[in-house]
């Protein structure tokens, strides 16, 4: 598979060079997916996808542009690149836009990442989705309006070739299953709940039954929810939605935000940005990880990085371009698998120690301001008092400064969520401002 892709990317490099580009980075990719949904006993949608793509970053006389196309007919591709190069000449020069120095380029071992399931599993999507939906329906004896099961499988591959000699490839498979349900609640409300799992290898998926049971638990938890009074208090954010908080923290760490002075992290390098109980690691070499990779977008080999070390911001996410602009050594332009180290106690043990806490299991909308670090998110979840679930909560907001929020971080639970490129356990914060009735 990837030999073809390398050839395609190399052809783009060669063609663009022959048409006048001084340097080129080309990517070629392809993917195959099957995606099936079944609702209440009948297949709702079955989609088979086969896609391909090619893109190029062109450096033309110190000028820079990026282009993508899926029209890979040789004449169309040549005409596309010719127009792209011509357009680039009309831009203003940007001398920092150059390829990465060859001695800084390279990849780590792709095979070690184990991202491809070579088990040749014969997948019968029809019976898989049927079982997923039926077991979910069976797990919910009352108040169920409708249940949908969904399953997908696919594979993708990409090649990156640069005009100064770098060749990198990646390939992965993906298998996912889940269900969502609508519950019948008071006042004609039909609150939804869902759960899913995704894995690089089919054998790593948890049982269908465990997902069905999780959906049932989450569905029941939605019933009768309402806002409680505004209060400042403890918040335990469930593992699978903690990425919302992590993202708010990581976004302003990007080199672009730092350089453009749109970052609340701009004056925080080596400073404390969270409580000492919090650390955040970018780990690109996690076997079978959803975000694992051998090289970054600059063609530099990936490495494990501790971004926040016991509260201290150790580095920004600086790619080669912004490294040149800022006069700093580049780190990497984007994250791979973000890991928050788990703690030792279960969520129940943590909640048992608190006289009042809201266990947040979902966010609804909201946003954050990367320049100031202010955030405001809609939430839903469960109010706990002295370890007991007291009332399901919805239609509430949390608001504040990300530094206050993270400064109030107390503890990570022992339940890391492994489905996704953010692997966080449930996270406990103190003195969060909730707004409600």
């Amino acid at each position: 598979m990837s030999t073809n892709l390398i050839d395609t990317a190399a052809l783009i490099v060669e063609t663009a060079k022959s048409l006048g580009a001084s340097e080129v980075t080309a990517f070629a990719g392809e993917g195959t997916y099957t995606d099936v949904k079944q609702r209440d006993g009948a297949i709702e949608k079955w989609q088979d996808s086969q896609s391909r793509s090619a893109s190029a970053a062109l450096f033309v006389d110190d000028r820079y542009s990026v282009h993508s196309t899926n029209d890979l007919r040789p004449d169309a591709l040549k005409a596309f690149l010719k127009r792209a190069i011509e357009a680039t000449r009309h831009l203003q020069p940007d001398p920092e836009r150059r390829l990465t120095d060859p001695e800084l380029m390279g990849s780590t071992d792709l095979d070690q990442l184990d991202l491809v399931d070579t088990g040749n599993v014969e997948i019968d999507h029809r019976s898989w989705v049927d079982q997923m939906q039926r077991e979910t329906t069976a797990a919910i004896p009352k108040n169920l309006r409708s249940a949908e099961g969904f399953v997908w499988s696919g594979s993708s591959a990409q090649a990156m070739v640069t005009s100064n000699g770098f060749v990198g490839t990646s390939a992965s498979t993906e298998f996912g299953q889940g269900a969502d349900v609508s519950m019948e609640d008071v006042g004609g409300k039909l609150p939804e709940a869902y759960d899913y799992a995704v894995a690089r290898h089919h054998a790593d998926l948890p049982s269908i039954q465990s997902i069905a049971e999780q959906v049932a638990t989450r569905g029941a938890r939605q019933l009768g929810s309402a806002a409680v009074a505004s209060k400042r208090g403890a918040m335990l954010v469930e593992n699978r939605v903690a990425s919302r908080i992590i993202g708010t923290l990581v976004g302003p760490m990007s080199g672009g935000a730092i350089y453009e002075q749109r970052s609340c992290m701009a004056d925080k390098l080596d400073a404390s940005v969270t409580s000492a109980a919090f650390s955040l690691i970018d780990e690109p070499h996690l076997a079978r990880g959803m975000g694992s990779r051998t090289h970054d977008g600059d063609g530099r080999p990936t490495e494990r990085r501790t971004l926040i070390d016991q509260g201290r911001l150790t580095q920004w996410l600086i790619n080669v371009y912004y490294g040149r602009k800022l006069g700093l050594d580049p780190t990497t332009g984007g994250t791979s698998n973000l890991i928050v180290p788990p703690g030792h106690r279960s969520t129940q043990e943590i909640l048992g120690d608190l006289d009042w806490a809201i266990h947040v299991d979902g966010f609804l909308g909201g946003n954050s301001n990367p320049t100031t670090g202010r955030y405001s998110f809609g939430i839903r979840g469960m109010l706990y008092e002295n370890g007991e679930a007291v009332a399901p909560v919805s239609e509430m907001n949390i608001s504040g400064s990300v530094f206050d929020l993270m400064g109030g971080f107390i503890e990570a639970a022992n339940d890391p969520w492994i489905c996704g490129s953010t692997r966080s356990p449930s996270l406990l914060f103190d003195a969060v401002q909730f707004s409600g009735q």
Partner: protein
Amino acid sequence: MSISKPTGASGSYFASLGVTAEVLRSVMADALSKGGDNCDLYFEHSSSTSVLLTDGKVNQASTHVSIGMGVRVRSGDQVGYAYSEDLSPDALRNAARTAAGIARESTERDIVNPVAIELPNHYPVAKPWDDVDISHRVKMVRKWEQAAFARDERIQRVEVSLSDASKVVMIVRPDGRLIEDWRPMTRANVRCTAEGLGPDGETVRESNGYNIAGRAGLEYFNEHRQEQLVSEAVDRTLFLIDAISPSPGEMPVVLAAGPSAILLHEAIGHGMEADFNRKRISIYADKMNETIANSQVTIVDDGTLLGARGSINVDDEGNKTERTVLVENGVLRSYMHDELSASHYGIQPTGSGRRQSFRHAPMPRMRSTLMEPGPHDPEEIIASVDKGIYCVTFSNGAVHIGGGDFSFYMKTGFLIENGKLGAPIKDVNIIGNGPEALARIDMVGNDLKVDEGGWTCGKDGQSVPVSQGMPTVRVSSLVVGGEQ
């Protein structure tokens, strides 16, 4: 790099790429070869160009081209979908046979020879982008940057982008309909970072911006729009320097005319997309012809506004678009239907079947969602509130369709104290329940304004361009974020 409006007869654009009437018939025959009730072929060739100014230089451009065909086969309420990025007859037929697998019989179906249907034109273009070279775009972007810096000395950084996109789509149906549409789009975005003294005399750094979009050519950027693009971007950024966080809690909320229509989109619009109702999972299922709002409230979803970002000459299933009245004087009158939901309910589709691209099956989507003007002066509405907030601009929103909970993020606004606008406020999320919020709209202004912002709606992994508009309204109570 822009695709020119085709000048030939409808259907000739893709015919010139080898997709002849004979090919179309054979592909549809394959699509229905296993007994599907109906099918549609959606061909699309799209391209876009953008230029970006950062750090004082127009130093980045990008172009994107995409071509392909999606085939959907329907069997009752079931859908099989596949697509091909290769328009050769073999590749198209292969995709059709894959999508056909949703059905399980083998019957002969009549395929009528495709005949082109003429369309209205809701987006006439005077100066198409394919006549505009990159250097002209570079000049425009530089001019906006300089105007932003000139407007206020507190502006420290300016980023500007200018994009245009165009696509030719062709929809072909076994009943003989062939529809070709050319869809232009342009969007400009100015972002600023400013530094100044905040309300407590401390130094505050803030970023914000403004963007506008429409289905238009270069003529869209008349002097007035260019001035407004820059002045709004600068003023909205400076506004944040002086603004504070409101106190949290439940309170009356007055929504300014224009962008506040994000409330309509999230709290009401999505729940009235008929797929959720067909599946009986929307909070508005089973409410047809019931009173769901104050009699001042009339809400429409309109695909025909001249040059609006959300306008379409035809929907992506090949059905006529229209102005659909969703709520009339407080009574729920219609959902937004694609063919699937319309046939389920035994009615005509409302031309609301839309998709992101040929890689996706269509579903009911909003176009331009508007609330019609009501009887009140906006000043009267503000004066009616003792203690609450007045929301002016927004950045995003979200909704849970079944539970009805929705939220939208207010970027700028004011406190209201004793019927008067007070301190400027910023960056709070507002949350509520759709039907409850709709029922709590108790004053509607007479100042309907269609927002020109470049809104994009996401649903089930697909993004489509939309527009929205609203007069000033009062919602008697919503939960507002903020810090004590």
